[in-house]
């Protein structure tokens, strides 16, 4: 079933986060006495299954808190699933979970080398691509300033620039790009189209439907940690279909002046349709 062309396999993956409320001894005692829970679990992902072919460009959509970033972090290898397996083929690069993993006290240059090394680039490779990365990030004279002084846009730019210049087989892009300014976003998307055309597997998380539509040839929709729509598996599935699915695309109920949002009429229509 798994062909030699498979890029990502996510098999029956679940992820449960444990939230600890009370950490000091005193707090634990108080919680015990009052009968409060010491920790609570939260199921971020439930039984996720899918496979991605090399060169496919997958859009991942869902509301905030639906588990998109968690899924991306699992594919990236930072988190390990609690059950099931995640497997990837080749080098994985990308920006995950909002914000580049930078060391705030180090300069942009140091972070560039460090990040590149973590993403699997050798010293020679980094030197070769150094100018290109700096040009793309457009951080100019701030290169030797500690990253803690960077604006969020600047560090996102540098992070993206490093990640996209890694000759990766799988590229992950989270909503993190949203902090950049418009011209930079366009530049990023153009660059992503370029690596997409070169046959890199792309995993793109965004809320912007039109952008996903143009970037991706497949869509996954997460809802509350469940993978509820996979345009490859659904009959007649398409990226548009996934977006429709996410929005329950019944007739546009939110008339422009309706401040209360959804109207009663639309509510019943909604109930009836689903």
């Amino acid at each position, binding site marked *: 079933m798994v062909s030699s062309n498979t890029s990502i396999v996510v098999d029956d993956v679940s992820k449960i986060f444990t939230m600890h409320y009370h950490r000091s001894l005193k707090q634990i005692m108080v919680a015990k006495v009052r009968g409060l829970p010491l920790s609570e679990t939260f199921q971020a992902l439930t039984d996720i299954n899918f496979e991605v072919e*090399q060169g496919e460009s997958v859009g991942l959509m869902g509301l905030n808190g639906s588990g998109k970033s968690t899924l991306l*972090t699992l594919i990236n290898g930072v988190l390990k699933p609690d059950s099931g397996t995640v*497997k990837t083929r080749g080098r994985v690069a990308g920006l995950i979970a909002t914000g580049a993993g930078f060391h705030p006290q180090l300069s942009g240059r140091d972070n560039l080398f460090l990040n590149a*090394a973590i993403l699997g680039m050798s010293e020679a490779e980094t030197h070769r691509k150094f100018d290109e990365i700096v040009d793309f990030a457009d951080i100019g004279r701030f290169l030797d300033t500690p990253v803690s002084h960077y604006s969020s846009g600047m560090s996102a730019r540098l992070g993206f620039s490093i990640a996209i210049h890694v000759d990766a087989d799988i590229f992950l892009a989270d909503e993190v790009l949203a902090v950049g300014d418009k011209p930079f976003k*366009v530049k990023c998307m153009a660059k*992503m189209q370029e690596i997409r055309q070169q046959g890199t597997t792309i995993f793109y998380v965004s809320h912007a439907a039109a*952008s996903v539509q143009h970037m991706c040839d497949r869509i996954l929709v997460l809802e509350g*940690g*469940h993978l509820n729509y996979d345009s490859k598996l659904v009959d007649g599935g398409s990226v548009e279909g996934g977006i429709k699915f996410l929005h329950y695309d019944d007739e546009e109920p*939110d008339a422009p002046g309706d401040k209360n949002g959804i109207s009663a009429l639309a509510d019943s229509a909604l109930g009836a349709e689903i």
Partner: protein
Amino acid sequence: MSGGAPTSREERREARASHPMAKETIEESRDGRKRNAAKRARKMARKKADSMPVVEALEAPQQTRVVEGELVTPAPAGGVVGLFKAPYLLRLLVRREIAKMYSASVLGLLWSYIQPGLRFGVYYLVFGVLLDVQRSLPNFAIHLFCGIVFTHFFSEVFNGGTRSIWENRTLVKKMAMPRETFPIAHVIVGYYHIFPQILLLFICCLLSGFRTDLTGVVALFLGTAIISVFGMAVALLFSAVNVYYRDFQNVTGTITQMLHFMVPMMYGWDRIAGFQPTHPVLVQLYLANPVCDSVILLQRFFWTGVNMADGDLGHNAELPPHMLERGGITLACCLVFLVLCQWAFSRLEHKFPERL
């Protein structure tokens, strides 16, 4: 909905809840879909419609990229062994760690010599001169220096290593990399700091006359190996535990402080040996401390070397018997301990990103 259109929001909510298909259909037909999901999704879609620009796909047909290699888990292959096989990342991190330590300080790297230097001065004055240990202990300065070098190394590794993962949490949370890199980097930083000290110690010994024998050389390497392996193991273990309970980074300072008194550097071995007949177990416990063993082995090379050049100095210049055998056993124990710590680290590191 019959019976006229509901007017207020509450009524509408009620109407929605009482709708025969409302709740169970939405919550059960599609797992995880919340009741107001559609509304939220539409709102989000409207708000974020322009958040990312649209860029058309390139005209050229897509190329096929053939990726060599197997499907593997994307989690980085951890392990101390793997780290030394691909040392580039480790080297970068060590360099960063050293640069970070002395950023925005005028004296910079000198600090790592001033600190042990001052400590040496204080101990020498208080114990050597004031309490007059140097009268009964020949070449007291060398004796003390040996202890300072290795205890300094160990405190550096222990303190720095314990905090390492916590201090690098932005990286740990976002980047897939072998997490052992951080504590191990501190071991290398420790070497970086003590190497000039050992050099200085060697020069002092040569100046005051120095002889050595095979036992001494073996002792030097054995001592260095013990302190390295033990430091690595402790750094690994505590860096991981410190993620869960930050208390540990407060304890390390106290432990390293105590350690200065648990090795024979301010006093000679003869003081401890005096307790052998009355408290044999305590003496064995004292000698079971790997840091203590490594200090004694270092003294066997430097201090005994100087003493040998000075001629016979009587029983005061003696070190515990069978130190090579004891050192060998200690090294073996430390290696086992390192393996255990690595195992514990691998068990604990799964949860690092969510606990940081």
